[in-house]
């Protein structure tokens, strides 16, 4: 009865896709000795409506100490990345969103949150094959261990590929994201650099509605 009175969800002018991803990444903090790499799972949902689109990207990566570094304890990084996009002209769209990454155990790595702002350039390589390059700033970054970043000190870069398959019902997705936070800490003896850097690769698929 309840279901019968709910209007059907019309998707004629909008597209929605969601699906799982395999995630692999590289994480570094403070110095080249404190480096981790690992893998995990993720999910990506995309909604397109007229000139607007939105990405919600979730991931959970288990970072293990790299054999070439001095780190000893693994940690899990759970990240939420939300991007709202507005098509401007030609291949260019503007982006606004936020990113939040939590480390577990809490003191093994920095948890971080920031507002993201940038642009995306998308290009149709062929029927159903799109690639996109994006870049931008991460503003107002907050760290669990304290520290600050200047206005242009936190940058991100991304590369994406989407291939439509099975009559546009399935999308094969591949994404690359690079983040760099030029974080500085001050324990009273002056500002000390404590940068954070992460490279994430994601490969997966999505069901399109």
């Amino acid at each position, binding site marked *: 009865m309840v279901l019968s009175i709910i209007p059907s969800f019309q998707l004629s002018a909008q597209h929605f896709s969601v699906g799982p991803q395999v995630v692999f990444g590289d994480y570094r903090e403070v*110095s080249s000795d404190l*480096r981790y790499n690992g893998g995990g799972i993720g999910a990506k949902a995309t909604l397109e409506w007229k000139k607007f689109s939105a990405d919600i990207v979730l991931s959970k990566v288990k970072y293990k100490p790299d054999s070439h570094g001095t780190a000893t304890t693994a940690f899990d990084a759970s990240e939420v990345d939300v991007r709202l996009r507005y098509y401007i002209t030609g291949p260019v769209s503007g982006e606004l969103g936020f990113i939040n990454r939590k480390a577990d155990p809490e003191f093994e790595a920095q948890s971080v949150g920031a507002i993201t702002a940038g642009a995306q350039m998308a290009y149709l390589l*062929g029927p159903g*094959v799109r*690639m996109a390059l994006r870049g931008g700033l991460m503003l107002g970054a907050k760290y669990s261990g304290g520290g600050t970043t200047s206005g242009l000190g936190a940058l991100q870069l991304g590369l*994406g590929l989407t291939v439509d398959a099975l009559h546009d019902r399935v999308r094969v997705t*591949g994404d690359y994201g690079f983040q760099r936070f030029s974080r500085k800490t001050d324990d009273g003896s002056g500002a000390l650099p404590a*940068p954070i*850097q992460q490279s994430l690769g994601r490969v997966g698929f999505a069901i399109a509605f």
Partner: protein
Amino acid sequence: MDAFKQVVLIEPERDLDPNRTSPKALSAFQVALTQILVVRQLRVDSVNFIGGEGAVGIRYTVTQPSRVVTRVTGGTMGSMRIDSTVANGQVNLRWPARMPSGDPVPAGNYNVVVEATVGQNSFSTSQPIRITHGVVDTVAHLTSLPGYTYLPETEVPPKSWRPMGLALVYSGIALAGTSALSQGDLGSASMREGGVIGGGIVLAGFIMTLKKPAPQPARGNILYNSLLREQIARRNTEIAQENTRRRQQVALSVVPLPRTGGGR
């Protein structure tokens, strides 16, 4: 001379063969023709035409100046005068084969009667004709215009290295950007993640370059075809109107029949 007059009265259509008759006899025959009143050589053309848009040719020769009345008799209409004139010599008429109301003459057998009168003398002759009705041919609708053919509305663009080139550029920017933006204190950045995704994009660009490009709409051809369709539709509308008019018309066929006797 009197003998020739008698011959003409008995057989008005009679003519002498100039090759087999003496000039003197021919001259006497011509003089005899001018001294008696006869209507000779009545001819009705065999014609087909659309009612209201044509006419039947009628010709005769009257040998003396006289009042000549031409009528059509028979069928369901009784008698209808179609011409009255004072004439001498050859007369040509055109009869539209229409009733006084303007409608085409009904199908049937008729007589075209020509009666010449001078004083007390009169002579008449007739030519039977048959009028039949038919359907006016209609014009077929057009599916194309002669000399103009539809053009393909899509065209396959030439193969291009642009997808491969752009894939290389995008991937190159991402990897170079990663290298440039990476913090020096953290060592050289990991290129594994960017390399995997960038490699996938370059591979996709390479495949798209080799793949036959998808047909693209040919705007010029689409516009041309639209104009052509519009022209054909407009012409077919005109043809439909013309056919509606033609279906209300009658095709008349007038055929002279053999005569059964001479005139009196």
